């Protein structure tokens, strides 16, 4: 199959689907037919294209093209390789179930679908672009669609969360533009390859300008990934959004910019210094996120804090990989395990948001102190087979890294590879605290003697299909973890390494470690019920999403990175 004719399809097709829905809406024909057609064009066809492209990426073919056939130094560069394939696959794996789930929520349905497909296109474009200004445009489109989707919830709190996120992120993107300006000024170009060519021969003042510009770009992009100290916006935005949107944003959208950035980082000198900072930022994110999750009493906020913690794993492995250099064995394995973990977390977190969201809707409360016996409530509202409870259990196992799930492999492999660096200890502590935090969340499903009042019945068809799809991915991924890991390593080969390394790691050989982690977690959970522990947890300051705090975090990140690069 011709790779050139297919690789832009994941951008064009969702846009086409979106246009179709707009047209249908304009003619007052926003029917189920248009919706299904859009689903086929916007999500299923890109999946087919991706499947057709698989042989090409396995053979390490890549396409470098200039959109619109402009001259190389004028046009926008797009680059398709194994990394883009994996990022688009990551997005599709979550967005297809999420779209099916969203059918169960009829309010604002048309607007949701239209914006949803534009977002799909922006994600694909972000993972393909090799041009700095185009990256800015893609990130902005991704951002604007996120703001709209977050605010599409009927709750008023979602509007405030969306507004805060918008102002913070839009301001950061202005700094991104200044960074792009700086790089354009000293290198005279905006495409990654041309920037790298010139940048490596810079010296003196020009080099400092280029490094500082790079810092502005990296920090502004990392803001979208919600790494501590840039994570203040996430909790409000992801916990107030509709469940389907939370699942998509928390699962996928925070990881795409991180991996899109790798193309730029690989091209410039002294990226290993950025890598070492990122490794520590990841470890700190992991611990800080989970500590804040532990003190949370609201289900969706707990999940959102846990996202900050889990992205910490991805960022830590990513940073260590860049520090080690992707051509080395350690670097190649680490970046593959970072991307592998991104898959693990994306699927598990989407499943958690969808199942817990549905359960809290049935309960009528998100408060962990009040909600009990969610399964009974779901049954009362018309669920015949307890699929929501079962899939919550599967997601719980995956995120706690218990066998036989995908997360069991992902987390253990990642901590194994990160060994030897300080942040690996932070990640181990986080693994224990994660189980404790999720046990705390599980009280929603504990049976209680309270009688279940009459609740509104609803149909669970679409919800069940979507949850089953995600659960199946977790279980099958757990079985085929080693081939998947090998596949990812193969696809990422063009990033630098010369051969497909194999870690030779088998998570089942370390079941004892999992057992110890679980024992510690159970011990901590029992301990956590005591008044003393509660008082201690209450002392952890709640992170506030005030503007001065957000910008303080931004300034801190800028200073640290700038100091590291210019010294």
């Amino acid at each position, binding site marked *: 199959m011709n790779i050139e004719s297919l690789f832009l399809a994941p951008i064009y097709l969702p846009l086409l689907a979106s246009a179709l829905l707009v047209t249908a809406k304009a003619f007052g024909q926003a029917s189920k037919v248009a919706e299904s057609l859009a689903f086929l064009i916007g999500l299923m066809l890109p999946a087919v294209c991706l499947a057709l492209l698989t042989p090409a990426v396995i053979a390490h073919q890549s396409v470098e093209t200039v959109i619109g056939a402009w001259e190389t130094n*004028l046009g926008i560069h797009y680059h398709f390789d194994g990394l883009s394939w994996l990022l688009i696959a990551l997005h599709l794996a979550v967005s297809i179930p999420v779209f099916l789930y969203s059918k169960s929520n009829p309010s604002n349905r048309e607007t949701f679908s239209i914006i949803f497909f534009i977002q799909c296109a922006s994600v694909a474009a972000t993972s393909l672009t090799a041009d700095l*200004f185009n990256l*800015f*445009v893609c990130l*902005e489109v991704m951002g*604007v669609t996120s*703001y*709209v989707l977050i*605010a599409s919830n009927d709750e*008023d*709190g979602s*509007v*405030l969360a*969306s*507004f805060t996120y*918008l*102002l913070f992120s*839009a*301001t950061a993107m*202005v700094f991104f*533009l*200044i960074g792009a*300006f700086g790089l*354009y*000024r000293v290198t005279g170009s*905006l495409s990654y390859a041309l920037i790298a060519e010139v940048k490596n021969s810079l010296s003196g003042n020009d080099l400092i300008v280029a490094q500082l510009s790079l810092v502005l770009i990296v920090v502004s992009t990392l803001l979208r990934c919600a790494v501590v100290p840039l994570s203040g916006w996430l909790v409000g935005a992801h916990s107030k959004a509709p469940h389907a949107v939370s699942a998509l944003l928390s699962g996928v959208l925070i990881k795409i910019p991180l991996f899109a950035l790798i193309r730029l980082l690989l091209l410039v000198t002294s990226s290993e210094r950025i890598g070492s900072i990122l490794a520590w930022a990841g470890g700190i994110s992991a611990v800080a996120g989970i500590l804040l999750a532990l003190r949370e009493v609201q289900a969706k906020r707990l999940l959102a804090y846990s996202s900050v913690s889990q992205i910490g794993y991805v960022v830590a492995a990513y940073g260590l990989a860049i520090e080690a250099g992707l051509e080395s064995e350690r670097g190649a394995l680490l970046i593959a395990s970072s991307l592998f973990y991104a898959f693990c977390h994306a699927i598990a977190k989407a499943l958690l948001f969808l199942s817990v969201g549905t359960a809290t809707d049935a309960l009528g409360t998100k408060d962990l102190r009040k909600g009990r016996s969610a399964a009974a409530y779901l049954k009362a509202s018309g669920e015949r087979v307890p699929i929501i409870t079962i899939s919550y259990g599967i997601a719980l196992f995956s995120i706690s890294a218990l066998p036989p799930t995908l997360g069991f492999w992902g987390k253990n492999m990642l901590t194994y590879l990160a060994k030897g660096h300080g942040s690996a200890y932070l990640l181990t502590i986080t693994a224990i605290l994660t189980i404790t935090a999720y046990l705390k969340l599980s009280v929603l499903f504990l049976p209680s003697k309270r009688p279940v009042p009459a609740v509104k019945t609803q149909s669970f068809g679409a919800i069940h299909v979507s949850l089953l799809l995600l659960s199946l991915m977790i279980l099958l991924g757990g079985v085929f973890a080693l081939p998947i890991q090998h596949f990812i390593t193969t696809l990422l080969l063009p990033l630098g390494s010369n051969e497909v390394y194999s870690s030779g790691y088998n998570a089942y050989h370390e079941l004892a470690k999992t057992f110890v982690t679980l024992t510690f977690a159970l011990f901590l959970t029992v301990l956590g019920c005591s008044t003393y522990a509660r008082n201690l947890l209450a002392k952890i300051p709640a992170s506030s999403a005030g*503007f*001065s705090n957000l*910008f303080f975090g931004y300034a801190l990140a800028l200073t640290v990175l700038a100091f590291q690069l210019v010294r």
Partner: protein
Amino acid sequence: MIIERILIALLFLSGFTAIVGMRNIIRKVFGLNLLNAAVVLLFILEGSRIGNQAPILDEGITTMVDPIPQALMLTAIVIGVCVTALSLALAVRLYRATGSLDIQVITERLQREH
């Protein structure tokens, strides 16, 4: 060019102060616009370092500006307009829900509801 640069920096700082320091959400949106305007001006100023004529290849045009920053800024302006429109729409919804434009009052009132 140094005076222009100082003026742009002042514009930028005033925008940033509005976003971080002001409590009125409409003013915050204005601040965002000032920031955008400052960056647009910076790019345009930079593009005119090598010439000052419109980049249309015609007779007598010898020293034209660098057209790339201008093309980029057209895009940036369009994005800026979208973001402004969306943020104003959100501001309207916040005002309808809470009856205030003050970010602190809005936060308090929304928290009290829950």
